[in-house]
């Protein structure tokens, strides 16, 4: 039996399924119980948000130089204002702050350049950022060359130190992690067992212990006369510690790539490093973006632990400022500020990773 059918033209959707009112009705007010929950939720939100806004903005004091400029009814942002330079640069000498500013400007310019897809010469900029910029940054920050007065690392601090620790940790941990992950999957017994022992050792030890070891124990083992800067020791400790975590994230990604990919590459005559570098890693890294960024974010926040060995990162310097007798009693403002700064950076990383995932998606998921 043959039905003779004519094509049906599309008709507009019923009015009550589109638009904000319909959205509210279907999502928040569909039935008495959900309406009740919505109203309770709104009330709780009201209880939380209104006093917070009141404290942080409406009753807050923004201008002034001493604690007497604060009415004490809301937040006293005067405290943050007065100490802002210190929070950003630590104890870096005021007269030399322009050097740190150049490094900051270069740092953010390079990151923006690499992050914005439209800008050209990505490869050269990346090479510059990895090879040349660290040298420039070091010479500028540390000094001792070109008549720049030397600024020892124990005077570095604040946000500058946090960013330094986090950036070096990330840039160092990723390649070491890749090598360790490949090593752990290797068939060569020595390479494999070295990677396993390395990863399991560093993963099994708390970061605080690593930092303690780096600052207290390491000098005992070094020959007399050789001293390694405390900041450098912390950097090495953080990098090795994070590379173990990174290695496991990367290994997870490698395992998700079908074996056929490597076989196809091998069948085309590619060597091991070409198979990994051209075929397996690019696919694995793309899948690992959430895991890698997760590790980066936790690394960023873990840098606060350097406080324990006497380095003053952003949180450390805020805490130090809180014990200043002229500013006693403003710990809430201090911690809110520190939390907000950390949140800005971590949230930016998170958003960028989501953007990257969308951009790199070639629609091959099957």
């Amino acid at each position, binding site marked *: 039996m043959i039905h003779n059918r004519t094509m049906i033209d599309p008709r507009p959707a019923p009015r009550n399924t589109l638009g904000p009112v319909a959205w509210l009705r279907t999502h928040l007010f569909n039935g008495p119980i959900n309406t009740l929950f919505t109203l309770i939720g709104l009330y709780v939100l009201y209880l939380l948000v209104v006093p917070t806004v009141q404290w942080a903005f409406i009753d807050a004091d923004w201008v002034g130089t001493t604690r007497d400029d604060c009415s004490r009814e809301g937040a006293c942002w005067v405290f943050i204002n007065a100490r802002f330079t210190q929070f950003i640069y630590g104890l870096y000498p005021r007269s030399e702050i322009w050097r740190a500013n150049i490094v900051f400007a270069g740092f953010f310019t390079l990151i923006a350049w690499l992050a914005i897809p439209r800008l050209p010469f990505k490869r050269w900029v990346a090479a510059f950022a990895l090879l040349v910029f660290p040298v420039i940054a070091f010479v500028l920050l540390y000094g001792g060359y070109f008549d720049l007065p030397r600024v020892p690392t124990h005077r570095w601090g604040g946000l500058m130190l946090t960013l330094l620790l986090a950036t070096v940790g990330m840039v160092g941990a990723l390649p070491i992690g890749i090598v360790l992950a490949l090593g752990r999957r290797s068939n060569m017994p020595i390479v494999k067992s070295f990677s396993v022992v390395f990863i399991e050792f560093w993963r099994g030890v708390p970061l605080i212990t690593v930092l303690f070891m780096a600052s207290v124990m390491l000098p005992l083992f070094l020959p007399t006369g050789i001293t390694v800067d405390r900041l450098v020791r912390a950097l090495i400790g953080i990098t090795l510690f994070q590379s173990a975590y990174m290695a496991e994230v990367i290994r997870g990604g490698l395992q998700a790539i079908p074996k056929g990919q490597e076989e*196809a590459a091998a069948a085309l005559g590619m060597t091991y490093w070409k198979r990994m570098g051209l075929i397996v890693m690019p696919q694995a890294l793309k899948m690992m973006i959430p895991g890698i960024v997760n590790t980066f974010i936790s690394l960023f926040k873990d840098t606060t632990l350097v406080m324990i060995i006497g380095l003053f990162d952003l949180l450390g310097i805020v805490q130090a400022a809180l014990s200043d007798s002229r500013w006693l009693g403003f710990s809430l403002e201090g911690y809110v500020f520190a939390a907000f700064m950390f949140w800005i950076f971590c949230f930016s990383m998170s958003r960028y990773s989501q953007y990257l995932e969308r951009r790199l998606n070639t629609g091959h998921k099957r």
Partner: protein
Amino acid sequence: MSEAALKPQDLMVEMRGVNKWYGDFHVLRDIDFEVKRGERIVICGPSGSGKSTMIRCINHLEEHQQGEIVVGGVPLTQDVKRIEQVRRSVGMVFQHFNLFPHLSVLENCCIAPMWVQKKPRREAEAQAMKYLERVRIAEQAKKYPGQLSGGQQQRVAIARSLCMHPDVMLFDEPTSALDPEMIKEVLDVMIELANEGMTMLCVTHEMGFAKTVADRVIFMDQGQIIEENAPEPFFNNPQSERTQLFLSQILGH
């Protein structure tokens, strides 16, 4: 056809007394067999009979434990350089295509010529387009594998192999993962290739293909070569009982 990474020789593939075990399981048992230049060979047999394992030994995706495999005059040993040399002249097409999903169709075909044979990009691309045209898929060159149908992907995989100018092509069940209506487009490309004189080893259940192009059909069961014959006598007058049973099962419906 070939750019002769291997010495020109009459015998392209030789296997002598090849044995292989997966743990305790004896997958390949005393395999003796050879392929001359230009020969088209179809290998069939029930699943688990070791036919895929056998052809995967030829480019050393699987390692054999006993016996000797010589490809284009180069004996396969543990030596990685030799293995890579053999692989450069042996193309392979997989059941699940194994295209590189992060690369476009064109890049899939260029990556090995550029990185293994060190061809300049323009030359590699021109050549890739030539082979993509031959498998009738040039208009999809800018797409990614995930955007193509199974039959299209398999044709790209064939083109990708051809871009390396192989002396031998191995096909490991190239149509088994395809929807029925896409099998023909892939088989047509394979038949054309066979007619141009490519040395081919195909593991397949497409008996029509075997009848059309094969010089020899090999039947394997339980890791052994049971029967080896030209297609006409193989199909019309199979010698062993197991071959008869297999053929009746596969041709019976």
